[in-house]
C-alpha cells in the first residue's frame, strides 16, 4: 500500500507541516516508479487550498489503488491554522483515491466538524496486559555470570528462567505498590521497574539470598517500594539509596536536608547571598511590616520572631496558608536595597557592583522583572521585581551566612 507519514512533532509551524506533507507524498509516489514526477509545480505550498490542489494534481493521473496519508500526533501541531483538522477531514471528499489517517492522543471527533468519521480507540493497557508485555523481556539478575567453576550447574538456561521468574513477581509488586498510583502507562511503568530492579536484586548478586527467595527479598528491600525516588523522572540517573537497608527505615528529613545542601554546587559571593535573602523577604513580607522587622533604631532582637512550633499554629481559629507557600509578590528595587542594608551589620559602599549582581541574578532567573507598564525601561526605578526560588533554597542560603531567614519572615514558618 503506498503511503506517506508526516510527524507533526517535527513540524515547526502549519506551513512547515504542509510543505512536509507535499514532500513526503512526492517521495512516496516516486518510490518504485521509473518515471519520476515533475516536481516543479509543487515548489510552494502556502496554505491548505494549495495543499488540496497539489494532492489533486498528484493523484489525478495516478491510476492505482488508494494512497494513504498518515498524520502522526496532529493534535499537537504547533501554530496550526484553525481550519486544519476540518479541512483534512474533508480532503477525501474532493480528492479521489486519498485516505487520510489522523493519529491523535485525544479524541478529536468534534473538532473535525464532520459526522460519521470512523475512528479506532486504543484503550490503555490494563494490569494484566502491562505485566504480560513487560514480562517478555526480563533483565538479567547477574550482569556478569557467576563463576563457572564454583557453580558448574548454573547454566544460562537456568539463569534465564530465574530472571523471568523473579522479574514477573517483581513487576507485579512494583505495579501494586508504586505504578498503580503514579503512572499507569507503559513507559512510566517500565522506567520505574528498570530503575528499581538493580537495587532490588543486589542481595541476590551479593549472595545473601537465593534467586527464588522472593518474599525475603521483598521484606529486605521494602524501602524501595516506600519511597518516591524511583517514580520521579531525572536527567541524571541517580543510584537509589542503599544505606537505609541496614535499619530499613526511610531517610529522615535531616538526611534529606544534607542531600539538599550538597546540591548547591557553587557558593555565591557574600553580598549576592544577602541580596537574594533580601529579595526573598521583600517578596514574602508585606511592606507595612518592614518598620517592625528592619528598623535600625530599635533593638533588633525584639523583632525577630520565634519560629513557630508544630501544634502552636493549630490553635488559631483561622487557618491560613503559610506565606511561603503562596506566590511571591512584586516589590520595587529600592525596597530590596533597603532590606539588604538592614540585614548587614556594617556599611556597604554604594558601588555599581551591587547593580551588576542584580543584573546577573536576573539573567540567572533568580530574580525576575515583573511585567507592567514601564518594565521595558531597565533604568526605571518604578519597575517591580519578584523572586523565582523557593523557601527551602533560601533557608539553606541564609544558614550559609548565618542568617535564620524564618526569623524575619512574617507569620513564621512551620517546621
Amino acid at each position: 500500500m503506498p503511503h506517506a507519514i508526516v510527524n507533526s512533532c517535527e513540524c515547526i509551524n502549519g506551513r512547515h507541516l504542509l510543505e512536509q506533507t507535499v514532500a513526503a507524498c512526492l517521495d512516496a509516489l516516486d518510490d518504485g516508479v521509473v518515471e519520476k514526477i515533475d516536481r516543479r509545480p509543487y515548489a510552494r505550498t502556502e496554505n491548505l487550498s494549495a495543499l488540496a490542489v497539489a494532492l489533486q494534481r498528484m493523484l489525478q493521473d495516478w491510476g492505482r489503488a488508494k494512497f494513504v496519508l498518515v498524520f502522526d500526533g496532529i493534535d499537537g501541531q504547533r501554530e496550526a491554522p484553525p481550519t486544519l483538522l476540518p479541512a483534512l477531514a474533508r480532503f477525501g471528499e474532493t480528492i479521489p483515491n486519498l485516505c487520510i489517517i489522523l493519529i491523535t492522543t485525544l479524541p478529536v471527533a468534534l473538532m473535525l466538524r464532520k459526522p460519521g468519521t470512523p475512528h479506532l480507540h486504543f484503550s490503555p493497557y490494563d494490569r494484566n496486559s502491562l505485566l504480560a508485555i513487560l514480562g517478555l523481556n526480563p533483565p538479567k539478575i547477574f550482569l556478569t555470570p557467576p563463576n563457572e567453576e564454583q557453580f558448574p550447574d548454573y547454566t544460562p538456561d537456568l539463569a534465564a528462567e530465574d530472571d523471568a521468574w523473579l522479574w514477573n513477581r517483581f513487576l507485579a509488586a512494583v505495579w501494586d505498590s508504586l505504578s498503580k498510583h503514579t503512572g499507569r502507562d507503559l513507559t512510566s511503568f517500565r522506567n520505574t521497574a528498570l530503575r528499581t530492579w538493580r537495587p532490588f536484586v543486589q542481595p541476590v548478586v551479593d549472595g545473601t539470598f537465593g534467586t527464588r527467595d522472593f518474599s525475603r527479598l521483598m521484606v529486605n528491600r521494602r524501602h524501595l517500594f516506600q519511597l518516591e525516588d524511583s517514580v520521579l523522572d531525572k536527567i541524571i540517573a541517580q543510584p537509589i539509596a542503599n544505606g537505609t537497608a541496614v535499619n530499613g527505615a526511610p531517610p529522615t528529613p535531616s538526611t534529606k536536608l544534607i542531600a539538599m545542601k550538597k546540591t548547591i554546587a557553587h557558593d555565591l559571593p557574600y553580598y549576592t547571598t544577602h541580596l537574594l535573602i533580601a529579595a526573598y523577604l521583600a517578596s514574602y513580607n508585606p511592606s507595612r511590616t518592614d518598620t517592625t522587622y528592619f528598623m535600625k533604631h530599635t533593638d533588633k532582637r525584639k523583632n525577630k520572631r520565634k519560629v513557630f512550633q508544630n501544634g502552636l499554629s493549630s490553635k488559631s481559629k483561622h487557618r491560613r496558608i503559610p506565606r511561603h507557600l503562596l506566590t511571591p509578590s512584586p516589590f520595587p528595587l529600592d525596597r530590596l536595597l533597603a532590606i539588604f542594608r538592614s540585614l548587614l551589620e556594617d556599611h556597604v559602599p554604594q558601588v555599581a557592583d551591587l547593580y551588576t549582581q542584580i543584573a546577573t541574578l536576573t539573567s540567572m532567573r533568580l530574580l525576575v522583572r515583573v511585567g507592567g507598564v514601564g518594565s521595558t525601561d531597565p533604568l526605571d526605578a518604578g519597575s517591580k521585581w519578584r523572586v523565582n526560588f523557593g523557601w527551602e533554597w533560601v533557608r539553606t542560603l541564609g544558614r550559609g551566612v548565618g542568617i535564620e531567614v524564618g526569623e524575619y519572615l512574617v507569620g513564621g514558618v512551620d517546621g
Partner: protein
Amino acid sequence: MEHQRCYIYEPQDTDERPAKRQRTSKTDSKGPQSERLATFRQLWHQQEKRIQASLDEVDKATQDQLVQFVSEAPTTSAACIPTGLVIAGPSIASHGPFFEHLGRRITDETDCTHVVLTGSESPNLKTLLKNLITKITSRTEEDDDLEIATTTRSGGPKLLNFDLAHVHRWQSKGRVKSIVVTIRDSEAFDSNVLVEMIDLFHSWLDRLPFVLLFGISTSAESFEDRLSGKSLRQLDGQKFDVTQSDEIVEKLFRATTASTEVQLQMGPNLMRRILDRQKDHVQNIQDYSDGIKYASMSHFFANHTSIFLQPDLSFRALDAHAFEAVRNLPSFRRRAEEMLDEGSTQEVRNMLDSDQFLFDLIIEEIRQGQQALHALNGAAVVLADIRRFLQMSPSVPLSSIWIRAASGELIGSPLLRETMLSIRKIPSNKLAQLLLALRGDSAITNYVDLTTYEDQLVELINSTDTTEPLRSQHDVRNESMRTTVVAQKVLLSKHKAALSEQDKAYSELIGNFHDNLERYFAEAFIDPRALFLSEILIYDLKSPHADAFQPRPRFAIERALASPQDYLGSESCGVDSDEGALSISQPATALVYQLYLESGPLINISDLWTAFSSMCGQEGNDGESKTMALFQRALAELKLLGLLKPTKKKTDHVAKMMWKGL
C-alpha cells in the same frame, strides 16, 4: 528674534589671547612613553601566558571528562539524547571562554561538530533552529556549498530555512559522528523553547546524532524543575562540575602575584581590594586578570620611573627627566639621608650629580629589590604549603598569607609562630613527607639545604628498629599531666617522659630544621615598602583602580544633588561653611532635591512649591513666574532622573521613587 528663521554668528574681532593657555615648551615627548608601553607589553605578555597556563590547567580536568563523554556518547538508536549538565557556577562572564575552549577541543580531538547557542539569539524555536542550521552547515568547505546549491536547484519543494532536514542532508554525507549542541546559558532560555527543542531533537534522534550540553549557573535540580516530565524522560545525562571560582582565583594568584618570576609587584592594599571584591561581589576570573592588567597599565602609564623595569636597558636610551624623577622619589630621599648620616657624602653627591653613576646604582638596586621581593613571594608560598601540609586548623589561603607578608606584618605574627610551633612537634614520618613536598619549591631549596636533613633523617630512621615514627621532645605524647594535692590545693604540673636516644637525636634534628626555617622566614619576610626604589618595583595605588572597577554612579548623582558645592566649587554655591545648609545660590534642582529628601513617600506639590518660593522667590512683577519656571524645570529634571513619578493615589501629589543612600 522669534520671527527669524536663522541666525548669523558674528564673532567679535579681538586680538587677545585665548583664555586657555597654550603649551609652549616641549616637555613630554612621546619617546619615553612609547618605550614604557613596549615594556608594559613585554611584561604583560609573560604574565598573560602564566594566567592562560593556569586557567588551562584548572579547566583541564572537567574538559577532559566532557570530551570523553562526547566521544563516548552513543550515536544512533538510543532512546534518550545524551546530555551533559555543566554546572558552571554563578560567574556568567566566564561561561563564554569556557565553552569556547571546550568547543575547540571537541572539534580538534573528536569527530564531532560543536555549536553554541545563547539565550539572546534564541527567543523562540524558529530562530533557534535557523541559527543552529546556519552554524552547523557553515562549517563546511567551499566546494560543499556548491553541492548544496546543486541539490536545491532541482525545483521541487524547497526546504524552509528552519527545517532540520538541512542538517540531515549535510550529515548524510557522513561528516561527523555526533552533533554537539551547547546551550550556554540555560537559565536565559524560555522553558517552553527548551522543552520544544528537546522534543524536536528527540524525534530526529534516529537520523541526527545529537548530544546536548547545558551550561547551568544555579544547580542541576533547579534546571530539572523547569523541564516537563516528558522532556526529562527524553534526556539521559551526567553532571559535570566546573572548578569553583575562588579556587581558580587562588591558583591565578599563585601564578601571577605570588610568582617568583614577576617583574612588577602588586602591592598588598591593591590585591586586598581585588580579592575582597572577588569574594564579596563578583566571581569572575576575567575581572581578576583585568584588574592586574589595569594596575600594570597604570603603573607604566603614569610613572615616569617605571622605564627602569625594562630588561636590557641602556643608558643612552634614557633622558634626563627619568633621572630627575628618580631623585625626587621618597625612597631616594630616605636613602640619601641615611647615607648622609653614615657620612658617605661623596656617594650622595655622585648620586645627585652623575646620571651614569645613578643609572648603575638603579640597575643594581632594582635587581636586588626584585630578588628580595621574589624571596618574599617564595617564602609566602612555602609557608602556605607547610600549613596546608600540616592541615592546620584555620585554613588560611595563600592570598591572605601573602597580603600579610607583603604588608610586612607576618614577622612575629601568631600565624607564623603557631606554624613554627607545630613544626617542632611533627613526628618523623610526616617530616619526611614534608621535606619531600618542599623539595619542589626552588625558593626554599636555595636557602635551606633540605637534602642534608633528608639524609640525616634517613640515617636516623635506619638506626631505629621499631616501626613507630620518632617523636620530638615537644610532641604532646611525650608529656603527661600530673596532679598533686598540697595543702588542699590541686597543683597541675607537666611531666616529660624520658626520651630514647633516637628520639633525642631526632629532637636535635628537628630543632636544627626549625631554627633554619625560622632564619629563612626572618630573612625573607621584609617590609617591601622600606626597599630602596620601591616606588618603581611595587604598584599599590588605590584611586584609579577603584574608579575604574568600582564606580559609584548612584552615590555620585545623590552627592551632586545633595551637596552641589562639592562639584561646582564653593563660589557658585555660596560660601557657607555650614555643610548641608540650603542656600539660594545653589541650583534650583539641588534645592528641590533637598526638600524632596525631607518628605515622605507622597509629596504634595503645593507644599513643595510654597517651600521653594519662600526660599528663593524673587521680587518684582514677573518674579513669581520666573521662580515658577525654575521650580518646574527642577521638577522635570528630578523626574528625568527617575526620582519622581506622577501618582494617581492622591491628587496634587507626586510619588517619591528613590531614597538616598541605598
